[in-house]
């Protein structure tokens, strides 16, 4: 404050009062201008808010238009698409578009992934939330964050180059592309998601519940498994649903490690093709842009979109309900 020195004199008060009252009496900034700017900004904000709706609209529009062209084709019938387990858009005398072969592959990989990610993720979450000393947390948290941040193509490489050879070494029946290897990698990928969402849910349980249980002489295990987990159950379920959605939509790992043979099998040693895997195959093959097989990519994408949307929507609604219950 440059004026600070001169103000040391006892006469400052009158001076400053006069000056400031002059300033304050002056005309204010134009409210109209401020209002106008405010409106413009508000409109911009609303526009960006609506942009996300536009994206959803565009996704549905694009997928629906092409899916309609797909079903218009003579080679395709609804009954075949939803009723057959033979997915064979590219080869053979009669093309067959039985989406169940792809859904089956997707489910197989997802099931393997979830049998790893869900229990491990949940237990790790319980450990982090209820048991872990600060020191362990400080190690485990970043480890999980790093695992979550690794690009999926790296997991694909890991599956193909490390997991598959190990599986083949353990058991001769594994083919080089197989569902198990891809599933394990997807499971590792989803583990941090499950863990952090489930931990959020556990943390949201009020302290009072825990203290009440401890006060009754419960062990940590009793508290976590009999009190906290049931209390956070809906949050945990939503974490599971979101993780399943993520596994269903995972692309690069299955494109690299699961294979390209669409078959309805539940043998994890076999190669399978998932919905996303098929889309990658179509995209990197650049099939002529007008054939039925090209539109089949959109029909598959639409099916995939609906599936993941249903999973995330339910997951998010459950999650929101759960959070509201405790906030």
């Amino acid at each position, binding site marked *: 404050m*440059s*004026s600070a020195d001169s103000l040391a004199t006892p006469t400052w*008060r009158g001076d*400053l009062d006069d*000056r*400031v009252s002059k*300033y*304050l009496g002056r005309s204010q*900034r134009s409210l109209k201008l401020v*209002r106008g700017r405010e409106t413009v900004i508000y409109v911009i904000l609303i526009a960006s808010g609506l942009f996300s709706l536009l994206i959803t609209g565009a996704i549905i529009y694009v997928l629906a238009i092409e899916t309609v062209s797909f079903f218009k084709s003579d080679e395709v019938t609804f009954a075949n698409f939803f009723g057959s387990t033979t997915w064979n858009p590219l080869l053979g005398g009669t093309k067959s578009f039985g989406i169940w072969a792809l859904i089956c592959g997707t489910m197989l990989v997802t099931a393997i992934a979830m049998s790893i990610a869900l229990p491990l993720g949940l237990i790790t979450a319980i450990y982090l939330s209820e048991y872990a000393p600060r020191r362990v947390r400080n190690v485990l948290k970043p480890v999980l964050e790093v695992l979550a941040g690794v690009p999926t193509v790296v997991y694909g490489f890991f599956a193909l180059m490390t997991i598959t050879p190990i599986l083949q070494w353990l058991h001769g029946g594994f083919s080089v592309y197989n569902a198990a290897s891809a599933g394990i990698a997807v499971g590792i990928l989803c583990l941090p998601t499950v863990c952090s969402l489930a931990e959020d849910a556990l943390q949201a349980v009020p302290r009072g519940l825990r203290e009440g249980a401890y006060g009754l002489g419960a062990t940590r295990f009793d508290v976590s498994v009999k009190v906290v987990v049931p209390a956070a159950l809906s949050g945990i379920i939503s974490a599971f649903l979101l993780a399943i959605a993520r596994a269903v939509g995972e692309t690069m790992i299955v494109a690299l490690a699961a294979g390209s043979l669409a078959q309805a099998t539940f043998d994890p040693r076999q190669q399978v093709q998932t919905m996303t895997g098929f889309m990658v195959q179509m995209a990197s093959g650049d099939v002529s842009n007008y054939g039925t097989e090209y539109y089949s990519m959109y029909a598959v994408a639409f099916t995939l979109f609906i599936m993941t949307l249903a999973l995330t929507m339910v997951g998010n609604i459950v999650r929101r309900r759960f959070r509201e219950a405790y906030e």
Partner: protein
Amino acid sequence: MSDPTTLANEAAAIEPRPRDGRQTHFTHSREQTSEPTTLAIRVRDLNAWYGDFQALHAISLDIPANRVSALIGPSGCGKSTLLRWFNRMNDTIPSAHARGSVNLGDTDLLSRTTDVVDLRRRIGIVFQRPNPFPKSIFDNVAFGPRLHMKLSRTELQDVVEWALRKAAVWDEVKDRLASPALGLSGGQQQRLCIARAIAVGPEVLLMDEPCSALDPASTLAVEDLIFELRRQYTIVIVTHNMQQAARCSDQTAFFYEGRLIEVGATTTVFTKPKQQQTEDYVSGKFG
């Protein structure tokens, strides 16, 4: 005014001050202004709701200009709600709505067309907890003037210094205006917030339990400040602390369950309340 905290001071803060001293002070001040009390805010038949819950029932109240009006009552009695309607802070709560009339001079405070931004410049507010922005002390005080006025740098410095002096915190902060406001003590922060409110030149200053988060020494400092400020501003203070109301207000309004039970000169309300509920409350039977 920031004397070292001594036991004596604390005791003084807790014990009601001698009524006489206050009284003379008041008298003195009234004599000084020596004009009839004018009306600042007029509330008529105000009903207010949060969603379906009715928080205020048919409140009619006059807030005199250049006086300190205290709103007292137990928790949830609606006193803060009323205060927040004065400068429409309740607009930030989506479910809040009100019917009735609140006027500041000619301005209808509840009207949709009232410019709340301008309104809040004219009616400043100080909150329960000091809430300085995570900026420097100078920037905190300069925040309002920068929004509302075109001032040169030196003019802005004048305003900041003036406001800080008014809020009786200048001497403590003048050497560290550039340091973060969050480094100040609670009492200093609250006085800084008062300075921040003053710096835009409001007509009315609303204070929502301004001392409830402060230690006794800081409370004392803020109370002194309130008393000092009433010469220039109409002050409405919400308080839980009846001694505080008694110490520094001219008029007291007692609320209970959303209704205005009694209003009158502070001395009257505290010594000869007309209503039984008021008496029970001021004598500590409930609350």
